[in-house]
């Protein structure tokens, strides 16, 4: 039966199954294929903390959502056009994400009595129970078909059935007229040592593709045309890798070798893993005995002259607080990357939140300001990490890069930059004593920036001591009340003056008027999509999305003055809005908050604005 090929602007596909079903891989293969084809993509892995939760249960459901478009897409999409559900539990926990006319692909073999019971269904008709009535259901017996293929390839059924995700992927490729080449290459490379597994995966992938070509449920197929992209070399990148590379770029541009002391923690571990790969560029990584050693080895490396980095997530930031204070008082450059996750305590480790902002701003003893930068998309993590390192090195301060699980794991196509387009980084290295300096005064400051000089061990005649005790400009320990107060003010002012070298805040959409939407960090894509939808609906709003949290851009106050209402959106109970209230109390702020471990959906942002307008 010849299919009609229908052009669509964009499509959202959600791959779901047991955490052992390989849904993350399936989703990322689909995403890569779309990106290679020239679609814009945004991805959202949504998985449980357990590596293998009890099979077939709701707690074990792992998901990977891909949004592909023929023009720019900024979010992974609110609701999906296609849901792949490899078992009843996956269907049950994801039915809420279906668009009204979505296509559902299930492995009907798993909808047996046992499977339905594990997922908590009360009847033998899962679809009826979930009130799935208007959807297009494709329900091949994937498990048994895959087992048959295994027999043909000569693989035992158990290892064979592990490839069943490829069947679903094959169907999706057919449905969206996509090439299987990228996936085929991937399989051939990945299983290069096991020809049987190559044969099996390729057979199941093609079986799925061919099945889709014959099944009646698929009347038409779709195509998402390539998006218009700037010419250049592209690659897919997720936020964690982009952070690692941004730091490496800063190392190259500063001439300071990169050192990362860290400890594995979800969802930040991939940064340490990525950095550990790049010994060919001189990157030193040290997987420490704990989070505290992570930051303390980095502080030691910083004192010795490295671009020093430590990476973590919320609970690790708590453990590092004391040492972060040491870096503040010793005035050493340090980048602390915190990939936020749901808290408090262990919280929900694999889910995204913006709930560490208060901790980043205030979570230390004493007067202890640090600079804070928040990346706004997976690829922006590169730039944000680069500038976090630049500011740390040039201002001799710790900088917290406040990323999010959503950015760290999410991916998008990225036009690879040329390093010649990035500025050099000039840390204030001291090579000899100043005039009128009998010995090195570690806290003698540049009068304009208040930045101290960095004298590296090994430099003759600049021997000096720093540490956690308050000191005067000459570096002598001091508990003089005036010295302390002065140093407290200078450390704070030094951070504040970074505002002179950061770009002014931009406003997207309306430049003045009734409503200013304010946001920061990983919510950018959703905010941007909401702004454009509101504009399409003829509702005029401005959007100020902040990358620089501390210090804030110098024009922040001036922007706020231009709007009648300010509404701050964030994935916490109101950390940023309260910070703004303290900074600029003359304005009245409204707030929209969500603390569900999930990103915003565009529709709720639009609805929140609509409520204000009407």
């Amino acid at each position, binding site marked *: 039966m010849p299919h009609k090929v229908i052009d669509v602007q964009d499509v959202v596909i959600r791959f779901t199954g047991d955490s052992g079903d390989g849904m993350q891989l399936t989703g990322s293969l689909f995403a890569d294929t779309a990106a290679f084809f020239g679609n814009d993509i945004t991805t959202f892995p949504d998985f449980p903390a357990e590596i293998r939760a009890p099979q077939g249960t709701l707690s074990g459901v792992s998901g990977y959502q891909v949004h592909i478009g023929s023009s720019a897409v900024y979010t992974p999409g609110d609701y999906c056009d296609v849901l792949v559900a490899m078992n009843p539990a996956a269907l049950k926990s994801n039915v809420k994400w279906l668009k009204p006319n979505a296509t559902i692909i299930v492995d009907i073999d798993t909808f047996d009595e046992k499977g339905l019971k594990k997922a908590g269904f009360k009847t033998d008709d899962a679809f009826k129970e979930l009130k799935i009535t208007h959807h297009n259901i494709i329900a091949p017996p994937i498990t048994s078909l895959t087992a048959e293929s295994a027999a043909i390839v000569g693989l035992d059924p158990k290892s064979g059935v592990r490839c069943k995700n490829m069947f679903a992927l094959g169907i999706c490729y057919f449905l969206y007229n996509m090439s299987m080449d990228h996936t085929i290459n991937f399989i051939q490379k990945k299983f290069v040592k096991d020809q049987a597994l190559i044969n099996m995966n390729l057979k199941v992938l093609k079986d799925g593709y061919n099945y889709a070509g014959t099944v009646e449920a698929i009347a038409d197929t779709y195509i998402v045309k390539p998006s218009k992209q700037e010419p250049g070399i592209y690659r897919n990148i997720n936020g964690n890798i982009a952070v690692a590379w941004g730091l490496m770029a800063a190392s190259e541009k500063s001439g300071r070798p990169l050192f990362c002391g860290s400890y594995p923690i979800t969802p930040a571990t991939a940064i340490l893993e990525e950095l550990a790969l790049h010994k060919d560029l001189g990157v030193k990584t040290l997987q420490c005995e704990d989070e505290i050693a992570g930051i303390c080895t980095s*502080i030691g*490396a910083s*004192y010795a002259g490295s671009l020093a980095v430590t990476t973590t997530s919320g609970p690790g930031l708590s453990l590092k607080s004391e040492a972060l204070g040491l870096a503040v008082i010793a005035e050493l450059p340090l980048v602390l990357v915190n990939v936020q996750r749901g808290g408090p305590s262990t919280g929900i480790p694999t889910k995204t939140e913006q709930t560490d902002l208060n901790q980043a701003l205030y979570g230390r003893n004493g007067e202890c300001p640090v600079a804070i930068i928040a990346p706004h998309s997976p690829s922006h993590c590169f730039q944000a990490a680069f500038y976090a390192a630049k500011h740390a090195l040039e201002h001799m301060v710790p900088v917290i890069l406040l990323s999010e699980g959503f950015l760290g794991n999410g991916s998008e196509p990225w036009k690879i930059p040329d390093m010649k387009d990035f500025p050099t980084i000039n840390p204030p290295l001291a090579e000899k004593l100043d005039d009128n300096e009998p010995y090195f005064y570690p806290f003698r400051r540049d009068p304009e920036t208040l930045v101290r000089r960095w004298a590296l061990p090994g430099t003759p005649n600049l021997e000096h001591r720093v540490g956690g005790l308050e000191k005067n400009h000459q570096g002598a320990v001091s508990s003089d009340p005036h010295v302390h107060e002065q140093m407290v003010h200078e450390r704070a002012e030094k951070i504040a003056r970074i505002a002179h070298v950061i770009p002014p805040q931009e406003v997207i959409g309306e430049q003045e008027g009734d409503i200013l939407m304010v946001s920061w960090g990983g919510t950018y894509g959703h905010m941007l999509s909401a702004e454009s939808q509101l504009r399409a609906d003829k509702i005029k709003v401005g959007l100020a999305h902040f990358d620089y949290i501390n210090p804030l851009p110098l024009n922040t106050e001036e922007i706020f003055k231009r709007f009648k209402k300010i509404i701050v959106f964030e994935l916490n109970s109101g950390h940023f809005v309260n910070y703004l209230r303290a900074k600029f109390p003359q304005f009245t702020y409204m707030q929209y908050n969500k603390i569900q471990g999930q990103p915003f959906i565009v529709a709720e942002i639009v609805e929140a604005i609509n409520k204000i307008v009407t």
Partner: protein
Amino acid sequence: MKFTPQDFKSDQEVKWCPGCGDHAVLAAIQRALPEISEELGYSRERYVFVSGIGCSSRFPYYMKTYGFHGIHGRAAAIATGMKVANPTLSVWEMTGDGDSLAIGGNHLIHAIRRNIDINIVLFNNRIYGLTKGQYSPTSQWGSVTRTSPYGTVEHPFNPGALSMGARGTFFARTLDMELQLTRELMIEAARHDGTSLVEVLQNCVIFNDKTHSIISNREVRADRTIVLRHGEPMIYGKDKDKGLILDGIKLKAVTIGKDGITKDDILVHNAEEQDHGVHMMLCEMQWPEFPVALGVIRRVKDRTYDDMVRDQLTEVANKSQIRCMNDMLRSGDTWVVE
């Protein structure tokens, strides 16, 4: 350039209590450094003294070298980062029994396990001095302190045994008043490639006075301590008539000429034996059953962490085509948009 101890003295006033054992250690190290510098060809700017928190951790301020006064317990981690970042530095960690065996115990054992080439000087006075007299992880069982008014009910750590357990490659012990021995051991520690741990049995004159005096008093010291030297028989005592033998699988203190024991029966100290069985027993020796062991108890060769880090960087770089960020960013899965 030749240095004198004076070249290592900072202009800061030394603020330890009069009579504190720390003064002697400071003097011993300031005397050892000119010799180390000459032997190893180090200039002054290569030394970094790193510390945690506690009385002994004020040490870096009194040295005219690079110095870093860290936070409680973390000196080993800070020192590790420095050494990995710049392996040409001579990194010295000054720490105490509270700093390194309580709050910083984890960093200590992992530094030793990695065998990073730093020198750790552990001032063991069996008490928290800077917080004014609470028991520490090395306080003897039953010690009466401000936080143990009825005596501690905790078993103390033995830093030497801990070092052996962590597969340490160098452990030495000295007494604060044995300035000459301390100086000698600092030179030995500096020579050793790997983590050198030197325990100094040190007196806190204010909060734990005479804690080591049962073995350290001048009148009894020779009979109650043994200074071990590699390749020499384990003989001690004022009259050089006492020694150690192996009795079954245990050490035994004996008198030469008594019970048929001759000089030939006495164990010869082999600090370079890989098996740490005897070293462990030597670390654990306590008066009155045994003399307390001083000197270099263990000194074995093994690969150091910083060397292996350097070698791996070179090896990977030699095999790689990637020379800069532009190369790296364009490697792997990419596509071109025309």
